């Protein structure tokens, strides 16, 4: 190809490569036209481009490989005869990802011993690693098992690098051994069983390997397996996993991604299930001759090119027609071994064998020709589908469970005394093994269908029976289990367990920080359950306990204060809530480093309070800050991010940026559906929020199903008495009001009020909101007597709570004023509106539209009381304000116009009355005659206009028609019906 031709090919390639897949064909056509050769060149290049990223990676890999060899060849690798600790270097054995391996002799003359010394490479030798290394190698030193290369010594070399000395094994790497001896199926499986035995032993000590791979398994000439590098990955910790995730050539990595489990590649919690996966990779390669995961195909974390996911091992390698690499005839793998390997190599830890023992058992059963457990379940694949369908729930539950394993056991080791260590470890181990046994598919009917929650339930039962001799341990476990139940939303069980944990601990450590933490957890669970009185007590006890530690400020105390603040907020005591939350936030800022989850969480709590207090700009600012912090900490796909998205959406809604809130809700709901079980309070919140947005946009039909879904979810999760339900019920009542369904409004408002009453808070601000909705719905349904009574109760409550100066008080006065006017008590109505207006002017925080609507009502009452001049002046001003608003609300403008027409006719200003009535009629076109009354109302105003013009016949007909509609829709005794009947009587009389 010459450069002119290349230029043409390049130009076309550059454009097409950037185009979307579906546009490529047309673009190719357009750019190459008739030039078939050009087209072919471009197509070939595009085909290569599909592998471009893989090529890039390979190029980097080659660079690193060559560089490594260049270096290696230039110098002798190890300082022969050098002393490292009490070991003398004999020669280099090899190089691995973690560092150089040296053959050493013991140099302190105590006795002769040959060993392998692993010098951890630079970059992994920082202080954190070194400290953990020294602490935890003691645990590893206890791992004495014939199939495990023993850890003999370890320490820090003079240059600060950690080293480990292991039993020297004169053996052959597993795969080489298999190949050299041309081992058959049985012999290979038996070798695999020896590896299993080693892992099983370690797992019982709660030590995980995390780097099981063929080169870590040596086989002696006697056929004995030795597993190397036990627990080293764990020992080195996050740094190793971090290095694993970094892009770059494989040899720069400490671990080998080809054998790493998906959760390792994704930096998620690891457990014994991680080793089960790697064991599966090992068996797969031993039996098929190819790797289970070819990471060279897809190097990205988590993007395993899982052969095992695609096809059964016995199906062979589709990319490799020849079977020379297959050490075992494929047909021998069909059936049991297929199932065993597939089950071991499941992407989700909970779909794998629960223990190495279960895997080993199946392998042994297979060798003996017995049925395997993987069969007993009937259909692994059916199960697979079940789990896929319920992936979110299962994964969620298992994640928490993984934390139980990974942190509790080790944390407990750290805190317990050395003398008790071994004994305790055994107890913990047996206990956990017992839990596992329940979940072992072979143990119970239904087998694999047991979820992590079943395992937890079983653990809870065993807690009382098996750990009763060890109250400290039982207390710790009860706390952990309680915490997990709380995370799963099962507050009742959480409360029981946390209380049990406190009881078990009460005599020994009431002054412990840990005791305080448990109290705080209990308070949180009680709060989540809605039991605020108990929650407050627990939070106070937590503060007292934490303060007894001698500190007046600490992150823990801040946490307790925030809980109290949140409870105060939920109880409607906003002033106290603000004081507590601000104090908590200041303390967290002073004792923690941002970004921090606790700071972000407290920013949110304060923001929520400001939302309740209608301090929107303050709240929105805090929420955005919290969202930034959480994104910084967790990235996009995290529940805290979802929660903040919801909060921010709510603020936008409250600030009248409703359409902008919808995408936030959508994103939050998507995250929730990915990460949470199908029923979850947070998902319910997000759904309810989205519903509210539709509601505010007037898209009621889209809102209602979302509200109902949220409500159902809340009922299932929280029972029938939770305050969260009251909020949703309240919103449903508003929705029904917008749809003119007063009976529905009344029903939902009463349900919401009943919940608050059951909470002992009939005067909670939210309860009063529902109650005021009830009053308005009663009025519009025509029941003025009850409307007045309920309205007065609301007003009394609000005045008692907020004094004579609240916005809410002003609104209730206007509501009540309308009811009084409609009841024929115009003077009382005017007095009520006058007080409302006074308040409104004093607080000045009433939104402009609501204020104008209130003025219209005031004007109508003035007119009814005989003050036509004042009424006309006010209604003109209100109409002008409503018309001048940036976002006009046509419904409110039309109502104001009808009011104006009414007042103008009373004043005998027929021209103005007719103009207003005509406009109102235009704005209220004919509506559904079965439910609509608005057109009829406008029609009545227009009839008055016709009457004024002397067209009495038409006026009568119009009014008659309006009356019959209103009578049908709103009832014969409704105040609107009565008013129209009266107008008609006057007209006919005239």
């Amino acid at each position, binding site marked *: 190809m010459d450069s002119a031709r290349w230029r043409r090919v390049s130009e076309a390639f550059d454009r097409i490569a950037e185009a979307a897949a579906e546009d490529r064909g047309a673009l190719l056509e357009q750019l190459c036209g008739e030039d078939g050769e050009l087209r072919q060149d471009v197509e070939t*290049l595009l085909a290569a481009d599909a592998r471009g990223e893989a090529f890039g990676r390979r190029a980097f890999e080659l660079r690193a490989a060559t560089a490594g*060899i260049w270096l290696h060849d230039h110098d002798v690798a190890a300082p022969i005869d050098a002393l490292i600790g009490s070991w003398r270097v004999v020669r280099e054995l090899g190089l691995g990802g973690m560092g150089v391996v040296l053959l050493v002799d013991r140099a302190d003359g105590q006795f002769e011993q040959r060993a392998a010394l692993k010098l951890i490479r630079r970059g992994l030798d920082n202080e954190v690693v070194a400290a953990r290394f020294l602490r935890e190698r003691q645990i590893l030193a206890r791992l004495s098992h014939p199939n495990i290369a023993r850890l003999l010594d370890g320490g820090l070399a003079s240059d600060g690098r950690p080293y480990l000395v292991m039993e020297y094994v004169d053996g052959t790497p597993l795969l080489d051994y298999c190949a050299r001896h041309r081992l058959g199926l049985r012999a290979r499986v038996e070798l695999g069983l020896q590896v299993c035995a080693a892992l099983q032993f370690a797992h019982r000590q709660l030590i995980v390997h995390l780097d099981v791979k063929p080169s870590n398994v040596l086989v002696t000439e006697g056929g004995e397996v030795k597993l190397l590098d036990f627990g080293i990955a764990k020992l080195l910790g996050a740094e190793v996993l971090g290095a694993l995730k970094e892009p770059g050539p494989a040899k720069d990595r400490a671990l080998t991604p080809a054998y790493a489990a998906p959760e390792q590649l994704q930096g998620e919690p690891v457990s014994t299930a991680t080793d089960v996966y790697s064991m599966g990779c090992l068996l797969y390669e031993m039996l098929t001759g190819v790797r289970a995961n070819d990471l060279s195909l897809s190097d990205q974390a988590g993007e395993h090119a899982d052969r095992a996911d695609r096809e059964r091992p016995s199906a062979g390698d589709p990319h490799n027609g020849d079977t020379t690499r297959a050490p075992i005839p494929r047909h021998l793998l069909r059936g049991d071994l297929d199932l065993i390997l597939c089950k071991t190599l499941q992407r989700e830890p909970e779909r794998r064998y629960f223990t190495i023992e279960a895997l080993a058992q199946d392998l042994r059963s297979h060798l003996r020709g017995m049925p395997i457990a993987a069969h007993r379940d009937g259909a692994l694949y059916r199960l697979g589908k079940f789990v896929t369908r319920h992936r979110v729930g299962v994964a969620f539950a298992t994640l928490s469970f993984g934390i139980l394993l990974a942190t509790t056991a080790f944390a407990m080791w750290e805190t317990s005394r050395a003398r008790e260590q071994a004994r305790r470890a055994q107890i913990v181990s047996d206990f956990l093994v017992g839990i596992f046994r329940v979940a072992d598919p072979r143990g119970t009917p239904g087998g694999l269908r047991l979820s992590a929650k079943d395992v937890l339930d079983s653990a809870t039962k065993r807690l009382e029976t098996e750990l009763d001799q060890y109250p400290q341990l039982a207390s710790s476990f009860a706390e952990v289990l309680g915490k997990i139940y709380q995370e799963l939303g099962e507050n009742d069980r959480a409360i029981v367990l946390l209380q049990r944990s406190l009881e078990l601990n009460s005599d020994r450590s009431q002054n412990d920080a840990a005791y305080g933490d448990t109290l705080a957890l209990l308070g949180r669970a009680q709060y989540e359950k809605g039991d605020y009185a108990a929650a407050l007590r627990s939070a106070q006890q937590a503060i007292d306990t934490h303060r007894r530690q001698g500190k007046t400020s600490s992150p823990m105390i801040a946490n307790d204060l925030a809980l109290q603040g949140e409870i105060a907020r939920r109880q409607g005591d906003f002033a106290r809530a603000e004081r507590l939350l601000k104090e908590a936030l200041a303390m967290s800022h002073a004792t923690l480093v941002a970004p921090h989850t606790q700071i972000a969480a407290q920013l949110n709590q304060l923001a929520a309070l400001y939302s309740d207090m209608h301090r929107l700009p303050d709240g929105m600012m805090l929420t955005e800050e919290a969202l930034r912090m959480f994104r910084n900490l967790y990235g996009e796909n995290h529940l805290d991010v979802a929660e903040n998205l919801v909060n921010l959406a709510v603020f936008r809604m409250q600030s009248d940026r409703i359409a902008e809130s919808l995408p936030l809700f959508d994103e939050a709901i998507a995250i929730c559906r990915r990460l949470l079980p199908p029923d979850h309070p947070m998902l319910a919140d997000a759904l309810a929020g989205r519903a509210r947005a539709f509601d505010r946009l007037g898209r009621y039909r889209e809102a209602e199903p979302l509200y109902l879904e949220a409500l159902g979810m809340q009922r299932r999760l929280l029972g029938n008495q939770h305050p969260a339900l009251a909020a949703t019920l309240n919103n449903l009542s508003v929705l029904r009001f917008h749809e003119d369904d007063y009976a529905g409004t009344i029903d939902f408002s009463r349900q919401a009020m009943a919940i608050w009453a059951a909470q002992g808070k009939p005067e909670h601000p939210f309860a009063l909101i529902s109650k005021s909705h009830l009053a308005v719905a009663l009025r519009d349904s025509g029941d003025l007597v009850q409307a007045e009574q309920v309205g007065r109760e609301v007003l009394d409550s609000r005045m008692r709570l907020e004094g004579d100066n609240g916005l809410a008080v002003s609104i209730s006065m206007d509501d009540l004023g309308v009811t009084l006017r409609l009841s024929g008590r115009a003077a009382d109505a005017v007095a009520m509106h006058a007080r409302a207006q006074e308040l409104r002017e004093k607080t000045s925080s009433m939104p402009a539209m609501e204020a104008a609507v209130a003025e219209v009502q005031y004007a109508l009452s003035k007119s009814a009381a005989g003050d036509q001049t004042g009424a006309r002046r006010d209604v003109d001003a209100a109409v002008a304000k409503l018309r001048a608003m940036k976002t006009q609300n046509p419904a409110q403008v039309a109502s104001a116009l009808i009011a104006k027409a009414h007042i103008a006719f009373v004043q005998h200003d027929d021209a103005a009355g007719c103009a207003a009535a005509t406009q109102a009629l235009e704005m209220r076109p004919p509506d559904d005659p079965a439910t609509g009354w608005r057109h009829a109302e406008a029609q009545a105003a227009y009839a008055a206009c016709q009457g004024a013009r002397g067209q009495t016949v038409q006026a009568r007909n119009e009014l008659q028609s309006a009356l019959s509609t209103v009578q049908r829709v709103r009832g014969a005794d409704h105040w609107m019906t009565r008013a129209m009947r009266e107008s008609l009587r006057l007209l006919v009389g005239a």
Partner: protein
Amino acid sequence: MIAAEPQGLGEPREMPMRLFALVYDELRRIARRQRRGAGGLATLNTTALVHETYIKLSPSPQAAGLSRSHFLALAARAMRQVLVDHARTRACLKRGGDITFTEPQEGSASASGDMVEMLALDQALIALTELDARAGSVVEWHVFGGLSMEEIAELQGVTPRTAYRDWRRARAFLEQTLGFAAHEQT
């Protein structure tokens, strides 16, 4: 060594040969020192090496008037030369010599294969540079010098988007010629 130098490197236009030799030597020296310090490990961060060479040599008179990016490009070429030279030596030894090497534990079987592939990559890169000098430079600087697309764009006086487009085209060309990724799938 210089004879095998790829043609048509767009920038820097007037490559100071003496500086190149200096960089080449310095790369080897720093690498050796790193290796001794680490007590022998087979991994080498070539990107860091290139940057360290720059820090070391930038005050030298030969480097005067050369921007950081230009220097890094120069070092990238030196790195490429060092590695290709070594791959050639190593591939020859593997075929004829009887010297044995201790090799990294993982993937030892593929080490000599790697060397052969490195030589093939170099040849294909020469071919690419003949057709498309700018794309050739991008590969050299990115792969051997570890320069980012932003740095490359600055050096070429183009937008990062154009630099990436060049990289993508170059990748496709090389993959079409060499089929590394296609072979991997077998």
